[in-house]
């Protein structure tokens, strides 16, 4: 398959691996920011092939993992309203809220639908004028344009029964929060390729310059990841700190202007709560006042109690790369993909689930 098979080429992968092995001289901690990269590292067994000096640390770029618990409870609360059709991306359904997941709410009779695009939700709203249709708009800069487009379209259609429950977060502030953390051990980043496809690279230059930390915008296929890791290791070994673009076949320096314009039209930057990390200033989007009618948070009176995360769960430390999943006392014991205590165990992009599948923890608890 063109544009895929060449980035899964075993010979090329081996070439990059050999180069990584011959370049590295000491211990480096590299954080891959995006959950999609984590998923690919695990799926292709890449961590196994890297020299032991190169430690990959799984970053906070898993939208499922960082969506606050009370927002999941809100989505469930809305879904259980007989007048609401709640639409969501697939992997949000299994995430545990404080009492249940959307999947359990669906089994209990709630109208929860898995969609691939928020535009489908607009269509459902158009076809069901007597129902309220809410899209659970979770994600990073990558999902923001489509979510914005859904509001833009609903506005043009004059729909009054469509809204989004947004947990729209931004990558650069989270990277900064990770670097700023006193316990942080991150030496370099693989920046998130698809986020940069939308937003471009400009936001990252100040981070690289200010913190003197190497960053390589990296794709998702095995060869992409290995090349990204090699470029990062080369910088680290030379003591350089540059912003490089490994994913130039997709990422343009200025990003996608049209998508950015659409985002600015519908959303404004706001403080956001991140599950496991807490509130990070200016780290997300909320719907602009002009489109307030499409903001489910404002449209509905949603009463959910603020619930504390389970005390044993160290998701926040894992998301910041301070602790490895295996350092959690509950890992693979009380907390498994079948019965996750914290969100990183839910999604296959989550660091804990990734480790669980990768490391044979399944066997130790079977």
């Amino acid at each position, binding site marked *: *398959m063109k544009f*895929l098979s060449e980035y*899964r*080429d*075993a010979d090329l*992968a*081996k070439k990059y691996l050999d180069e990584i092995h011959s370049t590295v001289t000491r211990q480096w901690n590299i954080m891959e920011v995006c*959950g*999609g990269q984590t*998923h690919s590292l*695990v*799926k*292709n*067994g*890449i*961590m*196994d*092939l890297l020299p032991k000096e190169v430690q990959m640390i799984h970053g906070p770029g898993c*939208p*499922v993992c960082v969506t606050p618990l009370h927002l999941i409870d809100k989505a469930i609360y809305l879904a259980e309203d007989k007048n609401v059709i709640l639409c969501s*991306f*697939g*992997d*949000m*359904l*299994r995430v545990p809220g404080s009492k249940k997941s959307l*999947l359990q709410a669906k089994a209990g009779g709630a109208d929860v639908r*898995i*969609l*691939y695009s928020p535009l*489908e939700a607009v269509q459902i709203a158009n076809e069901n004028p007597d129902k309220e249709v809410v899209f659970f708009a*979770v*994600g*990073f800069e*990558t*999902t923001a344009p489509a979510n914005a487009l859904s509001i833009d379209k609903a506005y043009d259609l004059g729909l009054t029964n469509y809204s989004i429950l947004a947990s729209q977060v931004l990558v650069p502030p989270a990277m900064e929060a990770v670097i700023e953390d006193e316990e942080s051990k991150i030496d370099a980043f693989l920046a998130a390729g*698809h986020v940069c496809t939308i937003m471009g690279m400009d936001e990252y230059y100040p981070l690289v310059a200010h913190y003197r930390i190497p960053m390589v915008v990296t794709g998702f296929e*095995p*060869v992409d990841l290995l090349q990204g890791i090699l470029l990062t290791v080369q910088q680290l070994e030379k003591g350089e700190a540059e912003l490089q673009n490994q994913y130039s076949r997709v990422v343009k320096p200025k990003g996608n202007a049209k998508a950015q314009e659409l985002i600015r039209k519908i959303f404004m930057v706001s403080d956001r709560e991140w599950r496991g990390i807490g509130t990070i200033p200016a780290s997300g989007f909320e719907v602009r006042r002009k489109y307030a009618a499409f903001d489910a948070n404002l449209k509905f009176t949603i009463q959910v109690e603020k619930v504390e995360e389970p005390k044993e769960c160290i998701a926040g430390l894992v998301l910041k790369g301070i602790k490895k999943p295996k350092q959690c006392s509950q890992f693979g014991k009380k907390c*498994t*993909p*079948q019965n996750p205590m914290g969100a990183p165990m839910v*999604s*296959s*992009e989550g660091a804990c689930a990734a480790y669980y*599948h*990768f*490391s*044979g923890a*399944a*066997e130790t608890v*079977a």
Partner: protein
Amino acid sequence: MKLQCPMPKLDFDIITLGHGSGGLLTNKLLDSGVFHLFDNKHLQQRHDGAMLTLEGKTAFTTDSFVISPIFFPDSNIGELAVNGTVNDLAMCGAIPQYLSLSFILEEGLKMTEFWEILVSIKSAAEQANVQIVTGDTKVVEKGKGDKIFINTTGIGHLHAKADIAPSNVQPGDKIIVSDSIATHGVAIMSVREGLEFESELKSDTRGLGHMVSILLDTFGEDIHLLKDPTRGGVATVLNEIARDRNLGIEILQKNLPLQNEVSALCEILGLDPLYVANEGIFIAVVSDAISEEVVEKLQSMEYGANASIIGEVTKNHPKQVVLTSAIGGKRIVNMLAGEQLPRIC
């Protein structure tokens, strides 16, 4: 091959509650539809059940079919309901002989659709050389079903050379898939509501009894285990084998046969083909010594062109299935925690 049978004249163009009442409507539906189409000496008895004479060791299995949509590229739920149970018998090393056929119909199902399904059932049964000897029809109110649910139960006598059991699986055995994986599940996904792909992909549902019979004729007890990787896909079946035998399984990603179109749709939909349902393939665990010959034999058959040795059974890492990726990395292929859910990005 599709059968062409003209639909008999019926009083209704949709299924009504009356068709499940047991009264006149039921009888008319059965007489001019089911009995007419599946006619055989057992049905002609018009008795409460079929009385069969069985000889020797017999396999017995049942399965229910609740697929949505009920019509999908090149096939429908009826064909699936026959092939599914026939294939379960084949996986036991049995030659399928008799089927029961039960419908739960939802009020409002179009008679033309029901007829098309019945015709597909007849066609699939003929191809698999099985007789439908007993059955049942119930109708539920609109909203209480999903157009049509089908249950089939099957009986077949064991092939004389068959010795198929999980306990026969040994370290060193090779694991073979009989054809490309994930085709059926992806074909179904491509026509689900909301996902309109311009795709030519067809379900690969088919009876596997004939292929299995040839393998058993040729290789007999060297065929240690047969499984059809339906729900949960290849990964789930391999995990079941590893768990039940307390042995490890190693598979090679580069040996997994996958149609280009299936692979592309899996990429788009965020699905792992290892977990996607299959209807027209089986997994064979066979002695190392004959494994190449089995693949050659399969490749010479109509539905085995892409047969491949995908891995082997090992004493290492008991209960675990380990995949070596195309670039040489390893990962554990677990059972799914639940349904496979598409990822956000």
